[in-house]
């Protein structure tokens, strides 16, 4: 639990560095605006922007509650008259709500500003609220990916707790990776028709820093819960391999028409097995190499005597 807390604190630090660099998702304006709003109302908001230690994380949740559950449909985000009550909603939270509402219109309108406008309409706002976001729907996609990653983390954490409590068996590495990637890819199923469009938008130069950030943190999460504690170069190779597996499986899923995506899961199984074999082969090669070298040395010593 302490490790989990520290990891979350580290994650906060990562995100707050993103605030300072102003280059990552969510958009810089909104962060700056919410940074100003947060500094202005210290008593309610205890989220630090520059430091994140464990004690900040454990600070009294009473201050946090109004942030996590924005109450009622009155976003007084214009901050008129200095309304700093418990109902105060920052611009970031409002954008979060609009994007979440917009997700249900994606199958119909695609990942576009129109879906965002429809989402805003369901919240009682004008359709012009979609003007807060970029006109190609990038923020919607990044929001969705970020939400999926969060869901995956929660799922993996729950499973880990079960294992710790002894209620479940600890899975072997390949099964664990397979299940994690499958769970994550299953979240795409409701939006699978428009997902190729989303992938192409994520590859736009403007979005690459954010999308890469989200991808690497997700892979890191999976390896963390798989129990990876390596401190040597294998840290990098493991993540690179899993990223490759994830991306190729995602692409296979795009054009898979088998019932229940069976082909995709079989492809995933094969890739993970390949990866395992590769790492076994690598260590075998290494030990064989060592044995060969020792034999040669022995032969050399014999010959020289």
């Amino acid at each position, binding site marked *: 639990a302490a490790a989990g807390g520290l990891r979350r604190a580290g994650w906060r630090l990562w995100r707050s560095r993103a605030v300072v660099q102003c280059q990552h998702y969510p958009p810089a304006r909104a962060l700056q605006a919410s940074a100003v709003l947060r500094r202005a109302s210290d008593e309610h908001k205890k989220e630090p922007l520059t430091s994140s230690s464990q004690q900040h994380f454990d600070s009294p949740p009473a201050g946090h509650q109004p942030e996590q559950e924005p109450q009622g449909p009155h976003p007084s985000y214009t901050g008129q008259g200095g309304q700093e009550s418990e109902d105060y909603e920052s611009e970031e939270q409002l954008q979060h709500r609009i994007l979440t509402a917009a997700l249900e219109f994606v199958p119909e309108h695609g990942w576009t500003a129109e879906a965002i406008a429809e989402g805003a309409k369901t919240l009682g706002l*004008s*359709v012009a609220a979609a*003007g807060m976001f970029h006109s190609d729907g990038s923020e919607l996609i990044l929001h969705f990916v970020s939400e999926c990653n969060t869901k995956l983390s929660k799922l993996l954490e729950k499973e880990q707790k079960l294992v710790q409590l002894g209620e479940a068996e600890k899975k072997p590495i390949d099964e664990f990776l397979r299940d994690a990637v499958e769970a994550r890819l299953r979240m795409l199923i409701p939006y699978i028709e428009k997902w190729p469009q989303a992938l192409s938008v994520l590859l736009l130069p403007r979005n690459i820093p954010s999308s890469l950030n989200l991808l690497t943190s997700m892979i890191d999460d999976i390896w963390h819960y798989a129990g990876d504690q390596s401190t040597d170069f294998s840290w990098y190779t493991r993540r690179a391999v899993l990223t490759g597996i994830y991306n190729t499986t995602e692409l296979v899923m795009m054009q898979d028409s088998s019932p229940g995506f069976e082909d995709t899961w079989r492809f995933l199984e094969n890739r993970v097995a390949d990866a395992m074999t590769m790492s076994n082969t690598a260590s075998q090669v290494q030990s064989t190499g060592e044995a060969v070298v020792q034999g040669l040395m022995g032969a050399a010593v014999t010959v020289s005597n």
Partner: protein
Amino acid sequence: CRCRALLSRPAGALRARRGLAAGPEMHFGFQTVTEEERREKIYQVFESVAKKYDVMNDSMTLGIHRVWKDILVHKMNPCPGTLLLDVAGGTGDIAFRFINYVRSVRQRQLQRKLKHHQNLSWQEIFESYQKDQFNSLGGSQVVICDINREMLKVGKQKAQHLGYSEGLSWVLGNAEELPFDDDKFDVYTIAFGIRNVTRIDLALQEAYRVLKPGGRFLCLEFSHVSNPLLSR
């Protein structure tokens, strides 16, 4: 030149000289006048210039005002069904651009709908025609509001001449006191108009009042040029 009207000059010294004038002092070009006089003067200027307003714009800005107005509508990125209030919209430049934009967006929408309709039965296609889904503007509307009757007249003639018939309304009104209910519009635009408003704070309050929650306020105006060469 109207664009210099916003440059401020020390009001203190001038106020001492004017002594007996009634009401707060304001600027009109390079003169100093009261609020009422300013309104009158602006009204007269636009009344006399109404017929040649577009030509005047072109000559003063060398045609680049068209680009600016196009950029404004692009930034607005309206979807069909948007209600626009164009204040100080006089001859209707923004309104016409808005209608063109919404029409093309609607075209694309309808094309996409028709593609989906490829495998519908005749009954379903008949029903969709009944629901009158295929109107070209998708329910979008513009209300052009101006304080000057002459400018509105010129605007109406232009609309007729260019063939814009549906989705436009022309209303005579003062930006400081709009004749509309609360929470009605999705977008409020004011292009090169806010400098002619005598009490800008009232105009902004009115804008806030008539806009729906989540609505957008777009203001197009001249500003200081940061490049020292160009600012001469």
